[in-house]
């Protein structure tokens, strides 16, 4: 018998594809409507915000850092964009112009937020998990202060967010944008000095610094883009729901990190491939959609995601290294 040989580098990809197929079979058996066209459509369009945020998070984790505030940043951007729209909706400006300005303002806000977090982490040497934990609290409360209850977008403006529904074949605009961001980041990570710096910092920050790599600048840039992705995800969520909610992003933090880790990116940094994150995103998104279809209680869903992230990390952690230290 021929021995089955799997290249280690592709393990994460094969593994994810296998998991995706298994999950789809399981959910189809449990509930036939899982596999019908409208649900698949739904699944694909639901995936876009998660995909974008996972694209931003992958380089953060490649650095060996983490951003626990991504969900909270998504929430605050989500309410910010809608409350800005509400503020300007009755002005003389054209609707599309109001949308454009509010979108850009929100994105700018999130980039500045990312720069602040990145600077605190890089310059003040605050561990990213604790700095982002603090920001999680800050953004969560900020979201509630801006609007403590959901706001709907008035009907007269619906026309300006119709683009969210446009699709080319089975792929909606949002997912295509998400893919493009993924591919863009893939090129950056593999082909530019910045990307090589990210990998080097993740693998050995001290050596990277001594090699003349601009460690602080790279870290801040990565966190800034991560903030941008969170806000873009928030805008997609707004466009889909035609409303905002101050807690909309909460569940995303864990899902995004699960997706990145399922994609084989090492939490200690330095190794991983952002294209595999796409697979991780689909695994997470199928689990989420499937659980909704077979109507599993939302609290049980959270337990499942907790377990998923634990299993993903346990599978991917390299325990062979002699110097492996768990902190």
């Amino acid at each position, binding site marked *: 018998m021929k021995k089955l040989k799997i290249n280690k580098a592709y393990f994460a990809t094969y593994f994810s594809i296998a998991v995706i197929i298994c999950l789809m079979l399981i959910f189809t058996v449990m509930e036939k409507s899982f596999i019908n066209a409208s649900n698949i459509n739904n699944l694909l369009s639901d995936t876009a915000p998660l995909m974008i945020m996972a694209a931003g998070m992958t380089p953060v984790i490649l650095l060996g850092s983490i951003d626990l505030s991504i969900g909270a940043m998504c929430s605050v951007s989500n309410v910010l964009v809608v409350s800005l729209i509400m503020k300007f909706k009755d002005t003389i400006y054209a609707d599309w112009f109001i949308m454009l300005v509010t979108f850009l303002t929100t994105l700018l806000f999130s980039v500045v937020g990312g720069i602040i977090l990145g600077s605190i982490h890089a310059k003040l040497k605050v561990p990213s998990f604790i700095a982002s934990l603090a920001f999680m609290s800050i953004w969560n409360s900020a979201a509630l202060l801006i609007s403590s209850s959901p706001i709907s977008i008035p009907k007269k403006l619906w026309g300006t967010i119709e683009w969210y529904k446009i699709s080319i074949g089975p792929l909606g605009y949002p997912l295509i944008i998400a893919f493009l961001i993924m591919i863009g980041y893939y090129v950056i990570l593999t082909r530019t*000095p910045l990307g090589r710096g990210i990998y080097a910092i993740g693998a*050995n920050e001290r050596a990277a*610094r*001594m090699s*003349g790599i*601009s460690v602080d600048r790279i870290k801040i840039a990565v966190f800034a883009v991560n903030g941008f992705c969170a806000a873009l995800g928030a805008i997609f969520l707004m466009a889909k729901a035609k409303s905002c909610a101050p807690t909309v992003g909460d569940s995303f933090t864990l899902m995004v990190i699960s997706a990145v880790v399922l994609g084989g990116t090492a939490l200690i940094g330095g190794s991983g491939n952002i294209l595999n994150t796409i697979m991780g995103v689909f695994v997470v998104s199928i689990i989420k959609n499937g659980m909704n279809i077979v109507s599993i209680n939302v609290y049980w869903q959270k337990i499942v995601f907790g377990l998923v992230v634990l299993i993903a990390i346990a599978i991917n952690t390299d325990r062979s290294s002699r110097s492996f230290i768990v902190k």
Partner: protein
Amino acid sequence: MSRKNILFSAENITKSFHGTQALKGVNLEVHEGEVIGLVGENGAGKSTLMKIIIGVQPQTSGEMHLRGQAFQPHDPLEANAQGIGMVYQEQSLITTLSVGQNIFFGHEKDFMRMGVVNWKKMYAEAEKVLSEIGCGDINPRKRVIDLNFATRQMVEIAKVVNVTKEASADGKCLILLDEPTSVLNETEVKRLFQEIRKLTAKGHSVIFVSHRLDEVLEISDRIYVYKDGENAGNMDVADATEAVLYERMVGRETNTEYYHLDKQVIPEKEVVLEAKDLGCRGKFKHVDVRLHKGEILGFCGVVGSGKEEICSVFCGDEKPDFGELFIKGRKVQYSSPYQALNDGIIMIPMERMIEGVVRGLSVEDNIALSNAGKLSKGGMVSRKRVSEQALEWIRKLRIKTSGKEELVIQLSGGNQQKVVFARVLASEADIVILNHPTRGVDVGAKEEIYKLIRDMVAGGKSVILLGDTLDECIGLSNRVLVMRDGLITGELDASVDAKPSQVSIISMMV
């Protein structure tokens, strides 16, 4: 020399890993109260034999005897229980704990009274252990972090003696020291040697593994030379000289051109780096340095003299508190090595594994770390140019690797260091700070690195050198600055025919 009882012997030990023979049948005999020096190039099999003796890995064939009985430990604990202990190359003390706590780490149970540790009893016992190896002057209540490296090394030895002596019938043990001096400076080495002598005076035996031949000659009673996993010599220290050992180790004769003195050039007038009254609180002060183009400027001083910190300031890793730094005539203030590299300054750091190479990356990616920007076009790094560059340096520096894609961690220490040199040379920086460039590198690779340094300078670069040994610093430099307690205490000319003596430098260092 009186021949005492044989304590330990190893006969015809062989060891093969996946088909490659690391040991091809070596012998070793240790008498009571003897220091055995064990030398050989990297890969000669010294460390492998040590690991077999301490029980980390079993031999493929061959026998060992301890006090006349067959000896075959399955793990280090078993070896300890029979009176053999090892001090590893990397220090294993927990620096935030006290000396006593470290010595009895894992044995706190022996001092328990009503569920809590009786510290008084532990420290009294620690004092006893320390005085037993002749180090009664070490205060067991001191935290390890406050001790110098030599003293730490002695605490490690005390720890090992403590676990081994209990078991051995006569209380005599065999201590394996794997490159104990690689982290020590000259004075600390002297002190360590004093302590080793006290140890042997008590009847304990020591196997001393080192790259530094002068040290081996100084401390050993007998010396074993291994080459490519075989015995290449076994002699009393009286019959050995550095030249003889060197020849046995590498199979060729050493020569006066060890430091390539014929290639030493006279530096140009142009000053490329100038420090004026530079200072760093608590580290060094009033430092005035001028580095000329094409010069090798050596810094000598004990650890803590401030020489390391000065280099950190030069390469942008730390900011100075006082004074001014001029690079090529322009006043600069760096806050990161990135900025320094933009001005053409780079450092080869001391801790190769921690600061020098990125272990998870390949040889080619490591070489391209410092100049990825220069290898790119329109913002994109060219894979082709990265690999061309790697092949060029692998050939030029004769880096032994299975290919440019090999992970750098799989190379030997000397070849890893060559990768670091390749990266630094590829960066085209023209002021290079060499912080212990030959640390942990075998004799053969050392000589190649010396040649590299000469070539760098001949190519118009300027070098600041913190030598791994005083000898190296004198041998390579054009000029030597001596530091003590954060101040420059002397400046000596070191041109080819006027090399200063070690004694004259040491007198300024301490």
